[in-house]
């Protein structure tokens, strides 16, 4: 996915002896000094270096003192009294990002020379930097602030006039640029050109006057442009969506995944007081590296949509009225009990978590329902992260035997009209009208139960509406299109009385069949792991923050699925 992975050695087993701040260590040959320091539990500060972008060495923050082994006339190393090679230190500092380690190399990350170099770079970066911190969105996660505290002097010797540059530059649909804050590290330029293959950003003018800009006639609008906001070490590139909304230090960070397509990029949800303010990619080399698409990142505003379902709704005399959960579950169970199991169809959803689908699987099994399927959603695939599968957990539904990929579903419209199907349980907020079943057919149903996040044509026809929780509001797991099992964690509570689907389904199951032994998502997991071979041996903890690969894609689609 990435043209470069500087954090990975060419050969992790080809080790050389390296002295880092006086301690001899074994490190992979050729690994750059910034990464070697990191692995040595040291830190070499840097601005322009990023392990997934080309190395340009322009910020000079990673200057370190380098030494090479002293050699005798026969080129054998000179050994010191401790038996270790003696090192000849070079007077000129080197950049860590572009220096690969070799046998016997000496590295000083904190010598007086190195401190002086960092101090100099910090002072230089700040002389023309505006004092925007009180109004800058980057404040709190700004490398300029952090390194200034760590390596700067705290006072300025600069008494000249600062340079003026363009502020509030409209770079693209989702990005605003402040050129005065830009430290010209070129990470954004390299990301666009190297990762996105979209040459759109560059520098104009010279020296201190250098200015980041989009090429004449071009806009910075590509589908992944917001990654540059994360890459920008300072507050030069900001997201139009997030800027001026929230101080980052107030944000609670919750590890989750994006559910906007079948890729399931690892994310961090930033929320405060029950509101999600932003989603950023969380590094996961098995899924999304350090990136995510702008669509997925900004797909959070539906959480506050006016169509959001906040309370259970029950239909009476042709109209929906708010009711209690107890009444709603009772009405739903009563409805399903009125018809024969073969007259019930269940629209499972590729938007539900494995845990939710598993409770559903128990329910349909106990009821004896066989008409279970999922509504396929196709997305706009690209050659990068976006998947053509719009369902984030279509694989999970298949693994749990709750999906035939929409094959069964395709005949349900006709079966409703002919009276074969009399009750429908719709999950995951699927809009069946949009999926091809006319509202006239849905109106013929004796029982239409709807669980979802947002109201739609189907929900408006339902006899019982069960408001559920969105991605940011629930804990669970999903399997992405490549067969990777990943976790999401609840960041905020669902609004109003809306509940997580697994709780809704648990209560519905209890009301329908009396069965219940599941008290937490972990409980559900234990049951899944015991029952579903692909999940055997896995625990909630074992999935971890980066997920686990279940099996290869080909064997997943090879029909080794649990039957419902």
């Amino acid at each position, binding site marked *: 996915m990435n043209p470069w992975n500087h954090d990975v050695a060419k050969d992790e087993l080809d080790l050389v002896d390296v002295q880092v701040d006086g301690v001899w260590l074994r490190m992979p040959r050729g690994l750059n000094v910034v990464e070697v320091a990191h692995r040595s539990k040291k830190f070499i500060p840097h601005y322009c270096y990023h392990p997934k972008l080309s*190395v*340009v*060495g*322009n*910020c*000079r*923050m990673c*200057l370190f003192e380098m030494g090479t082994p002293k050699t005798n006339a026969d080129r054998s190393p000179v050994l010191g009294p401790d038996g270790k090679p003696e090192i000849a230190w070079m*007077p*000129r*500092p080197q*950049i860590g990002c*572009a*220096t690969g380690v070799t046998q016997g190399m000496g590295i000083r990350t904190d010598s007086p020379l190195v401190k*002086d*170099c960092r*101090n*100099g*770079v910090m*002072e*230089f*970066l700040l*002389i*023309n930097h505006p004092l925007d911190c009180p109004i800058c969105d980057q404040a709190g996660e700004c490398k300029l602030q952090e390194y200034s505290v760590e390596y700067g002097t705290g006072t300025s*010797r*600069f*008494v*000249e*006039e600062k*340079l003026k540059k363009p502020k509030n530059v409209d770079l693209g649909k989702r990005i605003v640029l402040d050129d005065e804050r830009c*430290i*010209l590290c070129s990470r954004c330029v390299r990301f666009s050109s190297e990762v996105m293959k979209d040459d759109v950003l*560059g*520098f104009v*003018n*010279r*020296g*201190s*006057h*250098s200015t980041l800009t989009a090429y004449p006639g071009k806009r910075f609008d590509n589908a992944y442009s917001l990654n540059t906001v994360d890459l920008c070490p300072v507050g030069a590139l900001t997201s139009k969506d997030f800027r001026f909304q929230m101080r980052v230090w107030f944000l609670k960070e919750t590890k989750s995944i994006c559910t906007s397509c079948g890729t399931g990029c690892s994310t961090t949800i930033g929320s405060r007081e029950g509101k999600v303010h932003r989603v950023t990619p969380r590094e996961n080399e098995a899924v999304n590296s350090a990136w995510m698409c702008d669509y997925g990142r900004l797909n959070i505003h539906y959480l506050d949509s006016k169509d959001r379902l906040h309370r259970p709704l029950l239909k009476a005399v042709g109209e929906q009225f708010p009711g209690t959960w107890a009444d709603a579950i009772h009405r739903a169970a009563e409805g399903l009990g009125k018809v024969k199991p073969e007259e019930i169809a269940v629209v499972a959803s590729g938007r539900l978590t494995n845990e939710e689908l598993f409770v559903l699987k128990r329910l349909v099994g106990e009821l004896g329902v066989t008409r279970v399927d999922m509504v396929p959603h196709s997305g706009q695939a690209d050659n990068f992260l976006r998947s053509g599968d719009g369902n984030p957990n279509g694989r999970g539904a298949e693994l749990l035997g709750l999906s035939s990929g929409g094959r069964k579903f395709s005949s349900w419209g006709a079966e409703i009209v002919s009276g074969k199907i009399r009750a429908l349980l719709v999950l995951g907020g699927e809009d069946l009208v949009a999926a091809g079943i006319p509202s006239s057919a849905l109106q013929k149903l004796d029982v239409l139960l709807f669980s979802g996040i947002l109201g739609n044509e189907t929900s408006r026809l339902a006899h019982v509406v069960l408001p559920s929780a969105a991605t940011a509001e629930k804990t669970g797991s999903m399997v992405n299109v490549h067969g990777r099992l990943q976790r999401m964690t609840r960041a905020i509570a669902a609004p109003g009385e809306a509940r997580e689907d697994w709780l809704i389904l648990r209560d519905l199951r209890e009301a329908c069949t009396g069965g219940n032994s599941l008290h937490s998502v972990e409980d559900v997991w234990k049951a899944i792991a015991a029952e579903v071979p692909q999940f055997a041996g896995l625990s909630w903890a074992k999935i971890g923050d980066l997920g686990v690969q279940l099996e290869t894609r080909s064997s997943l689609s090879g029909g080794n699925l649990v039957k419902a």
Partner: protein
Amino acid sequence: MAFSEQRLIFKNIDVPGYTRDIACYQKNGGYEVLKKGLAMGGGAIRDEVKKSQLRGRGGAGFPTGTKWSFIDPTKTTKPIYLICNADESEPGTFKDRQIIHKDPHQLLEGMILSCFANGVKLAYLYIRCEFTEGWKIMEKALNEARAAGFLGKNILKTGYDLEIYVHRGAGAYICGEETGLIESLEGKRAYPRIKPPYFPAVLGLYMCPTIVNNVETLCNVKHIVDMGGEAYAKIGRPNNTGTRLLCVSGDVVKPGYYEFPVGALTLGQLINDVCGGIRNGNRLKAVIPGGSSAKVLKAGEVYKIKEKGSDGNMLEKEVGLEDLRLDFDTLAAAGSMAGSGGVIVMDHTRDMVECLANISAFYAHESCGQCTPCREGVLWLKKILGRIAEGHGREDDPALLKEVADKIAGRTICAFGEAAAWPVQSFIAKFKAEFSARIARNGSASRHDTISLLH
């Protein structure tokens, strides 16, 4: 005592009746050395260049034979490129311009020989955009050489093919830095490359092995092939061989370009005997011996120079400014450099604050802006110096100037950092009293001509 020049490169320059067309060049023996070189073979030419101990004339003085030896034409599978660096931009330097304007075929002959020696099939002549006339001259010369069979396919029926293209810069000093030049030639901003890994000999133009040589250096190759490396090495002094083009500017009676064997004369002889002494009978104050980026040398200074005595042992001698030999090693030992051969002479009427403000204004204007210390530091230097020159200096300014310069030199991607820092470091170290005196009489602005450069 008059010193007569020993002209090798400038042999035909300014000779009455000598023109820059190929007929005149050939009438004077032009392209005969090429025939000799083609018969010798590439390896033999490289050997002669190595024996000649020729050092690059662009500024760094790196041995040309060594530079070439980083490339083995028999082993590389990629094309090898040669670039002639004709981006002559160092203030005080105007030697390459003379060659291009007055003897372009000499340069071409040297280039073709160098290309042949290194297995180069495609070469570029990178010329600064301000050399508009020079560009036209070189294009014409190339056409003439092509028509005469010295360039193109099957050169002189030896089976050797070579094409040379002229590429014009766009007006940036940094394009004289060889990796910046390569980036520019590739159509990008002339941001110098980080070394390692982008040593031109390994990953140069289009990531292929590339040799970048200065105009004067390439001309020297012709003469080395002509007379042989050993004979060439006898000109000048050990490790400082051949002739040197010197560009003298500033406060001398006869500024101009001269050619002498390297180290054949002292700075005092150059100023007093060759250039007619200091103008208006003034006293010598300072000399910048190798282009504006070289460290300034002050009249009255005494340097400790090591030299090989007649018994072969190294002797340390104390040498005054005017007795410094104009060669690579002596000027380096004196704490400066021979650089690009641009000797800038300043007399006692010169205000060193203004001189340095002028130099710093140039470097602040030309910093490419790629790496932090140079981008931010050099403009800062200019601003401080401008403020002092305008009569608003602060007591701490000289110390601050030094500290800022110290945080640039040695910490940048390319040598521009040193080029900008060295003048400041040396002016402050040697003329600190003058800076302090200027600050003490604040309120009196400098002469108008310097101030105008600062905005």
